[in-house]
């Protein structure tokens, strides 16, 4: 299967500071991939590199097999909704659809109008007077109606209230189902991603700590609890992600492809949130000496 996004040794430097460094990643096509990580991990930089907004300082990135923003044809393949969902506040909703139609040869006007009427947006309203949720929906409509092969969304729901957030993600899922496109979206809310993503990438301090199908990840990780014991006695093939011990008890989160057979353990499934937090914690504990402060958003 082809990669929607493939990055190798990718780095981006702003003046002195590196926003992203040595990032290697491959996301297969046809997935709704969630990108999570603490603030400052390089999520936005990675997404902007993928959308062709930035050019890499080091390394390479290809999106649907081509360098991002390589030309009009490549740009037509990628829909991008930037952070804070920018729109032209002085133009009307209808103006936005018009500019989308002018600038995109693959523009699906029917889709755009259908979405706008479904959202009950007034085409004559100035975009500047839309609510945050409506703004985000308008930006998403523009990105969807160009009929991209890959949709990149940078924290699209960060500033939305819970209802608008749900509506946005619902609209996104309907479009994905209808158009069969790949999606990469970032969020600091794992709960949002859990609802829509079938692929997960955890990025901490530029490094990909975890990447894979959500179902595989959930199946291969377990929370173990039992009497206190030396973690070194675990069988080969069980990798400890996090551990905590009290005087009597040990709590482990392990990765293993096989089943956990030891009857001494109480085995529980993990949630996606647990998994993300575990990898972030591990990265903070043993990751490369990094000035990044780990800040897990709630």
């Amino acid at each position, binding site marked *: 299967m082809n990669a929607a996004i493939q990055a190798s040794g990718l780095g981006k430097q702003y003046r002195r500071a590196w926003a992203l460094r040595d990032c290697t990643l491959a996301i297969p096509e046809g997935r709704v991939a969630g990108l999570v990580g603490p603030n400052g991990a390089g999520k936005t930089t990675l997404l902007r590199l993928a959308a062709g907004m*930035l050019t890499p300082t080091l390394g390479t990135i290809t999106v649907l097999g081509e360098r991002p923003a390589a030309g009009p044809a490549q740009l037509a393949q990628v829909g991008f909704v*930037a952070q*804070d969902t*920018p729109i032209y*506040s*002085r133009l009307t909703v209808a103006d936005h659809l018009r500019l989308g139609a002018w600038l995109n040869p693959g523009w699906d006007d029917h889709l755009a109008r259908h979405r706008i009427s479904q959202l009950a947006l007034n085409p004559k309203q100035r975009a500047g007077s839309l609510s945050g949720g409506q703004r985000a929906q308008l930006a998403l409509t*523009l990105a969807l109606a160009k009929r991209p092969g890959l949709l990149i969304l940078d924290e699209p729901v960060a500033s939305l209230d819970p209802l608008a957030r749900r509506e946005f993600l619902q609209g996104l899922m309907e479009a994905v189902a209808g158009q069969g496109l790949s999606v990469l979206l970032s969020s600091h809310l794992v709960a949002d991603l859990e609802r829509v993503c079938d692929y997960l990438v955890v990025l901490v301090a530029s490094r990909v700590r975890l990447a894979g199908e959500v179902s595989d990840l959930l199946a291969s990780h377990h929370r173990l609890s039992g009497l206190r014991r030396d973690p070194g006695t675990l069988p080969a093939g069980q990798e400890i992600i996090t551990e905590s011990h009290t005087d009597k008890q040990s709590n482990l989160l392990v990765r293993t492809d096989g089943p956990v057979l030891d009857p001494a353990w109480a085995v529980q499934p993990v949630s996606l949130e647990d998994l993300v937090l575990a990898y972030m914690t591990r990265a903070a504990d043993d990751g490369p000496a990094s000035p990044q402060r780990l800040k897990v958003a709630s």
Partner: protein
Amino acid sequence: MIRLSMLQLRVQAITAAVALIAFAVLLAATGPHLASLYAASGLRGCQPASCGQRASSFLKQVNSTGPYAPVDLLSIIIIALTPAVTGLFWGAPLLARELETGTFALAWSQSVTRARWLAVKLTVGGLAAIAVTEALSLLFAWWAAPLGRAAALGGGGSGVGMNQFNPLAFVTHGITPLGYAAFAFTLGVTAGALIRRTVPAMAVTLAIFAAVQIAMPLWIRPNLFPASHTTVAINFNDSTLDLYKTGSPHTFTFTLATDGSVAGQPGAWIRSSGAADAAGHPVSTVVPSACSPAASSSGPGPALANCLTSRGIRIAVTYQPASRYWPLQWAETGIYLVLSLALAGYCFRRLSRLS
């Protein structure tokens, strides 16, 4: 992409159109009567001997009656300021507002490369700025044609009959306005690309444009072509000549106004004047002892002028002949267009690093 540029320039275009129409109405309301005054002055087909006289009285009449002097001044101010206004309000926000509000991410993620986006934006905005400025200038040129002809016939002086090289006349007529418009616009775009904020970019655009517009007539325009030199007789009755005497022993000074007359060179641009002998060599400005009696009478009178003339003293004049008007217009416009292209090229080079 052209349609998007026009959509985004809609408000500015309407403003410009309204201003242009208002200006045209003002000139159309006063122009025909000015032309009829000219026709009545008998300047058309006048005999060379009487032309200067008729031109002066025509200009005097225009200066003192009707709305012509204020309309003339207002037009000059409007045309001189239009390039700055388009540079500030069309050029500076072109990139700065997109960067400031984040909409660049929307613009540059459509199926149009950002180089093409900028090329179209620069072309549409730049041509619009040029068209508006030059349209104002052409309207004014039509209106002021009688004044220009009278000034060229030697009736010139100040006010409505100013010499074509007068900085205010030079920058509002001919093709220079389009050069200024192109320069101010690209300067605004470049400032926006560098500063990334609209209001500071506007301020910087205004400051730099004003500095260039002051430097141009003071230091650059006079030196674009080597000046011509000649000597003329002291004509005490020439209103554009000032003869001073100062100090003890007396020294004298000639000052020939910028739009003064050089024999045989009507409409020339006087750069400097001084005392010289017949061969054009500078001479001492100490009043010769033979002329002392003439100088010691109250004020520098005709007696002093006559005495200096009798001692072989003439006025050395450095000037640009009237025939240099169009070469200077082309050269200056060319300089501004080259600067504009350089600024536009810089914007393209910077474009990949803007987001």
